[in-house]
């Protein structure tokens, strides 16, 4: 297998076969990140393609110190956040208001029968809806840490924010998710136990 650094050099020199190989190696992870960010297949395809095109156009700016995967993730996240910023300021303001809410189910509007809601097919829907409650930035941080397993320091680099901000954003995001999913608290199928360190 050709080392990635060689592929990057070749791609920087205009060899499209090398760029194709880079795309093949990273398309899957990038697509799933984009799917997590946007929540829709079509948008994910679009965002991942746009990311690769931007990467291709800016290949000359890529420096070897950073990992290629982190670099394209950074492009994807920034592109997504910029698109969201342009699209809806109002929606973001609405979600930001929720930051002041506290833990616990007493604030949950939905008084849902846990047995009904825990239906297997509905769990995915509830999780998606819970994710939709996050602001774009909270969603990015949560996805990168929880689903893509990036260390907090890498997320800070990808998003261009401090590690402290990553942690507080993540904490805030998980609080919102908790609120949205609080009716699962009594469901034996979900993890509820207090886990000691």
């Amino acid at each position, binding site marked *: 297998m050709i080392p990635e650094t060689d*592929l990057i050099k*070749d791609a920087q020199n205009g060899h*499209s076969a090398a760029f194709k190989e880079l795309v093949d190696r990273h398309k899957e992870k990038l697509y799933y990140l984009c799917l997590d960010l946007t929540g829709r297949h079509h948008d994910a395809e679009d965002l991942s393609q746009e990311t690769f*095109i931007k990467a291709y156009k800016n290949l000359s700016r890529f420096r070897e110190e950073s990992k290629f995967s982190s670099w394209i993730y950074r492009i994807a996240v920034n592109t997504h956040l910029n698109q969201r910023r342009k699209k809806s300021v109002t929606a973001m303001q609405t979600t930001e208001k929720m930051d002041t809410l506290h833990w*616990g189910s007493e604030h949950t509007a939905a008084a849902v029968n846990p047995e009904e809601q825990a239906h297997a097919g509905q769990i995915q829907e509830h999780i998606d809806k819970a994710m939709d409650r996050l602001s774009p930035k909270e969603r990015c941080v949560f996805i990168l840490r929880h*689903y893509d397993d990036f260390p907090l320091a890498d997320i800070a680099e990808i998003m261009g924010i401090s590690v402290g901000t990553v942690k507080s954003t993540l904490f805030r995001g998980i609080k919102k998710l908790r609120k949205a999913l609080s009716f699962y608290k009594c469901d034996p199928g*979900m993890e*509820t136990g*207090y886990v000691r360190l």
Partner: protein
Amino acid sequence: MLDCKRTEELMIEAIYGELSEKESAQLETHLDICGDCQQAYADIHSTLGSMSKRERKDPGPVFWNNYWGNLAERMNEEAAGNAPTGIIIWFKSLISFNSWPARIIGAAAILVLGIWLGRGTQNNVKILPDQVSRSAVPAELASLNQRASNYMQRSKVLLLGLINFDTESEDTYSLNLPKQQQISQDLLTLTNDLKYDLNENANHKLKRLITDLELILLQIANLESEHDLEAIEMVKNGVDRRGILLKINLEEMKQASQPVQHRDNPPHAVI
């Protein structure tokens, strides 16, 4: 002693295994004496347990197989974005004639226009812009190789869409003929330069394949409507009869066996 605010940060790090032993002990001490943080920590675990049940749907092998083709197509569309629009509208209007004689005239006009556009926009219409300096001969040959390869790949994606379209049972809407025709037209603008360069490099086999493809692309570009199932079948038969997809696959295999060229190893002609 830790305060509750600092504990929040430590909880996040602890959950994702990013906490040192010392901080871990500090967190545990705080949780033992602070009911609120203890509850919050349990809630985080519970929530993340739920979130881990999330499933991501695999878009399927067709999506992954076509990923590069679609990406390359979009890059090409962006690169071709500077083509003069007035001409493109006129160009499109040529394929809306209804009678066969008009189609033939249209096809001839497209061919002539293809030559003209191909020359006029050859620096814009490229699947992947060749950023290598064109002054060195080997780089130019590698670039020709890439152009031919990209041309074949795009054609293949297009033809697969057409071949896999079942005129008997499928809705013609799913064929998306206008898009297919647009791609055919884009490819036709590249054909003459490519054939000329292949001829110059005595690669007659690949030139013949490109010529075969050109005929098929012209037929697609001239289909008057997606409801003309007979004409679509004719194009499909043509692809089949000429063994076009097999020839493309063989060419691709041949090119894939060539190592990626390195900067300090100037590329040689491989076609």
